[in-house]
Every structure is written in structure tokens, then in C-alpha cells.
């Protein structure tokens, strides 16, 4: 693992359902600078700092779910360069 200054992680973000509408986007590429192992929570913090819908929809206490490479994970799950990180509301199928 690289731990030098300027360690850059390039992620493909996917927004689904209510969040896709709130963000007016189905997804984007995000580059995250990190000094140690980045986690999903770092993505959330980066998005939240943009303000607007990102800040309100991802505010602490809001029910949000995550998938990394299409598997459900918790916010403390580590992420790596090239990962697909999906952010969505709790599921309501069935």
C-alpha cells in the first residue's frame, strides 16, 4: 500500500433512487486524496462538504446505505483505487 503524500484514489460513484434525484446525477468520478486507508465515510464527508442537497441528504442521522463494488458495506469499509461506490436510501423492494 502506498502511504506517501498525494496518494490518490479514483472512484466511480453511483447515486440511486431518491438520492439520484436529489443530487440531479446518476453518478460521477471522484478523486480522493488520502494519507492512509480511505473509507466510505471519507467519500461521504467529501460530498457533504459541497453543501446543498449533498449536505442535507447525507447529514448525520439520515438513513443512507452503501455498496462497494456492488456489495453492501458499512461506512467504515475501506475503499481502493478503481472501486465503484454506490450511495442509496434503505431498500424498499419485494
Amino acid at each position, binding site marked *: 500500500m502506498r502511504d506517501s503524500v498525494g496518494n490518490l484514489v479514483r472512484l466511480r460513484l453511483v447515486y*440511486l*433512487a*431518491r438520492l439520484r434525484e436529489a443530487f440531479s446525477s446518476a453518478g460521477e468520478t471522484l478523486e480522493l486524496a488520502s494519507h492512509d486507508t480511505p473509507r466510505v465515510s471519507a467519500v461521504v464527508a467529501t460530498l457533504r462538504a459541497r453543501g446543498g442537497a449533498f449536505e442535507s441528504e447525507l447529514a448525520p442521522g439520515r438513513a443512507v446505505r452503501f455498496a462497494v463494488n456492488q456489495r*453492501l458495506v458499512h461506512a467504515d469499509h475501506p475503499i481502493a483505487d478503481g472501486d465503484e461506490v454506490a450511495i442509496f*436510501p*434503505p*431498500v*424498499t*423492494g*419485494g
Partner: protein
Amino acid sequence: MPVRVQSEDFDAGAEIGRLRAGDRSVGAVVAFIGTVRDLNHDAAISELTLEHYPGMTESALQEIVDEAKARFDIRDALVVHRIGALAPGDQIVLVVVTGAHRGKAFDACEFVMDYLKTRAPFWKKERREDGERWVEARASDDEAAARW
């Protein structure tokens, strides 16, 4: 295919027939069909649209079916889930489980539905007289999944 995501309707009888065909060890077939209701929290629903996360949906459903086979002594299991625009009365989801005896088949069918409700990436949006709204997840669904 033990899991399918499709916009077309399904024929439960035909699906059950295919799943149990040729397996003489099957003594019980349990099926669950979820359908669109015309009311939610006392508001009239004119249309229900189901969105999903292509790719993850199929693998999540497959994982749930694999887990059901590992946990319960069943012969086979099938999940068909519809996406797109649906009307009240339409079928949404079909779960079929075959087994030697009914007990495990009933349990496995409930397990698949409880896990699907909390782990498979589908979202419902309702159209009502006052506009469209995304359906909120229910705490009771989390509780139902937690008992397994």
C-alpha cells in the same frame, strides 16, 4: 436461472412447474407472490415504479438464494422480481422454494423475502393524487430480517 429481474409479468404456475420438474424428492412447494396494493398509509396509489441497481441486484438475489440453500434443508429456490411501472393488482415478486418437507420450505421462503426486503437494491416510487413519492423503508422489515 434461479434469480431473474424483469419488466414482464410472470406465470407462477409455469415457474413452479419448471423448478420442480424432474425432482421426485420434492414433497413440498412453497410460493410467495407480492402484489401492488392500491393503498399505502391511506393514500390511493395509481402507479408504482420499481428502480434497481443493475448488476448488484442479480448478485444480491443470488447470494440470498445461496444462503437459503445453505441454511435450510431445501431442494431448490427461485426468485423473480419485476422492475419498471406497475399498477395496483400487478404482481411484483415471486419466491418459490421446493423441499422434501414443508417446514424448511416455509422457513426458507420467509427467509428469502425478509432478506430481499432489506438487502436487495430495489426502490419503490408511488404515484398518488398529490404527486410522486419514494416509499420509505420500514423498521419492521429490519426486525423481520434480524430474526434469522
